[in-house]
């Protein structure tokens, strides 16, 4: 089997960088660990959960999708190419890798998005199986696992008590990466560590059926009472992909920007005529839950949640998606018993 020593991860990153890869990895950033561009000398942090997801690599928070030279009221369109450097995301979590299928579906739903697809094609995802989970992790409730290989090009598995990682390429991109790594990845033997235990919090299949019957449930009011509508959950989410398009510029040039947006914001659905189909936070939270666990399933045949738990870790009001899902299921079971 192929093995890399954990204390050689910086060497691995350096070897890949030398072969032209841009390295995105979990590195310390103030008080948090963030997936960001690795720089020589930085430590790749394996024992912490990143605040942001792999989505950041594929869909930047703000991206130029159009450019116009302006001349008074007239304009000249200019070509815009996707920025898609050859990239490896080193030590992404399996829940982030699993989210790729969701983004792939949305951005290729017969209209193929050039920008997303260019970056997706240029990105290799090296997932790291989880040895530990925290109380917000719920991948096992949404069809995932702490050592899932879904969406990954390489799976790294901790071994020998965390001292080594076994390296398994899962396709062409993965094999190319292993070849580029050179001597840092070596043949050897190592004893696999136990993977994290992630308890199942709710039954996603049953939940979809419950949701279909509970659009008008008063529970949405209760569940969303704490929501501030800040959008942190959507921004941190590896599957949330909703965006806004805005023009920004000077008198000489204007760019058309695609920016992250969130169904939690009041203006998200506000009509020009003044009507807002989702006038309160209860309607918006309902949309968030329904979209992930019912609508997306109906449309694309898969859940739009990979159970990473970031939404719950970051929520300033202490709300958690898994809690909402469990509460809806519990309420439906209680109603059925009556």
């Amino acid at each position, binding site marked *: 089997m192929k093995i890399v020593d954990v204390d050689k991860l910086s060497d691995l990153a350096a070897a890949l960088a030398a072969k032209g890869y841009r390295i995105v990895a979990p590195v310390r950033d103030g008080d948090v660990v963030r997936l960001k561009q690795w720089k020589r000398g930085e430590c790749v942090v394996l024992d912490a959960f990143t605040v942001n997801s792999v989505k950041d690599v594929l869909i930047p928070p703000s991206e130029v*999708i*159009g450019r*116009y030279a*302006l001349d008074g*009221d*007239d*304009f000249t*369109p200019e*070509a*815009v190419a996707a920025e898609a450097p050859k990239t490896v995301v080193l030590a992404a979590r399996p829940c982030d890798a699993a989210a790729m299928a969701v983004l792939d579906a*949305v*951005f290729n*739903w017969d*209209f*193929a*998005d*050039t*920008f997303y*697809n*260019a970056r997706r094609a240029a990105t290799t995802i090296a997932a790291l199986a989880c040895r530990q989970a925290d109380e917000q992790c719920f991948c096992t409730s949404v069809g995932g696992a702490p050592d899932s290989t879904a969406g990954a090009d390489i799976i790294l598995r901790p071994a020998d008590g965390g001292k080594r990682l076994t390296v398994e390429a899962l396709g062409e991109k993965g094999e190319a990466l292993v070849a580029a790594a050179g001597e840092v990845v070596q043949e050897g033997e190592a004893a696999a560590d136990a993977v994290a235990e992630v308890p199942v919090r709710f039954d996603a299949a049953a939940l979809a059926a419950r949701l279909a019957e509970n*659009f*008008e449930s008063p529970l949405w009011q209760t569940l969303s009472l704490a929501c501030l509508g800040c959008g942190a959950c959507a921004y941190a989410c590896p599957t949330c*992909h*909703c*965006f*806004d*398009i*805005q*023009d920004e*510029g000077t008198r000489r040039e*204007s760019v*058309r920007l695609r920016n992250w*947006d969130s*169904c939690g914001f009041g203006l*998200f*659905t*506000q*009509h*020009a*005529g003044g*009507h807002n*189909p*989702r006038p309160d936070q209860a*309607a918006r939270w309902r*949309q968030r839950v*329904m*979209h992930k666990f*019912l*609508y997306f399933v*109906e*449309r694309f045949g898969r859940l739009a949640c990979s159970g990473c738990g970031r939404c719950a870790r970051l929520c300033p009001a202490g709300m958690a998606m898994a809690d909402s899902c469990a509460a809806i299921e519990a309420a439906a079971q209680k109603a059925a018993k009556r």
Partner: protein
Amino acid sequence: MSGNLYEASVMRIAAVREETPDTRTLRLEFADEAARAAFSRAYRVGMFGLYGVPGAGECALCIASPPTRDRYVECTFRRTGRVTAALADREAEQRITLRGPYGNAFPIDDWRGRDVLLVAGGMGLAPLRSVLWNLLDRRAEFGAITLVCGARTAADLLYKDGLAEWAKRGDVKVTTTVDPGGETAAWRGKVGLVPAVVEETVPPNQKGVAAVCGPLGMIKFAMPVLVRLGFAARDVYTTLENRMKCGVGQCGRCNIGGVYVCRDGPVFTLEQLRKMPAGDL
């Protein structure tokens, strides 16, 4: 891999018409003949476009001209926000952009041989104008055509020249109405809300199709009237005008329940509408 989805066609404003004090129609011509031909091949009545002013942005509006008149594209808009304000500031011979056509269409080929009732309120006449012109340009294929069209005041009626022209033709019955208090001394049409005027002027036992466009409130009150007049729920059509950014099912804001208005719509039947969660409309 295909090109940039967001690349738009450059359009020359061939003419500007003031419809009402706050509403204009732009007649647009393609700067590029290949783009015009591609648009013409794809366009079916009911589809929408993303009209853009570089520097201000894009907005989703219906296409107010029919596929049968494919040398130009017309859009009618009310000045309400940043993009429509920028559109309103543009003059003839200046340029804007257009993406599309997107969405589904009124299945007018299935309407052949049947009577058609069009019910429009306010800005709702814009999408139905392209339907009406489309039907009239293929007049022999359809049965009786009726338009009931209302606005808040006489001044707010769109397409006053069109209304006059349709009234003169004799092969389409046109009834206009204004909300109570919206009439002027010279007003010759009805006074009353659109659903009530439909109930008053359209005979019962209807077997044809109906299309209703206008404010959501008007649509809600017009639907039961149409059902009482005999229209089947699958024969009653409307368009939904949810907020959109991308137009291609990716930006995620036009959903009603699991329905994407930009992809599954904007044209829906009453039968489809009834299956949508009312609380999301």
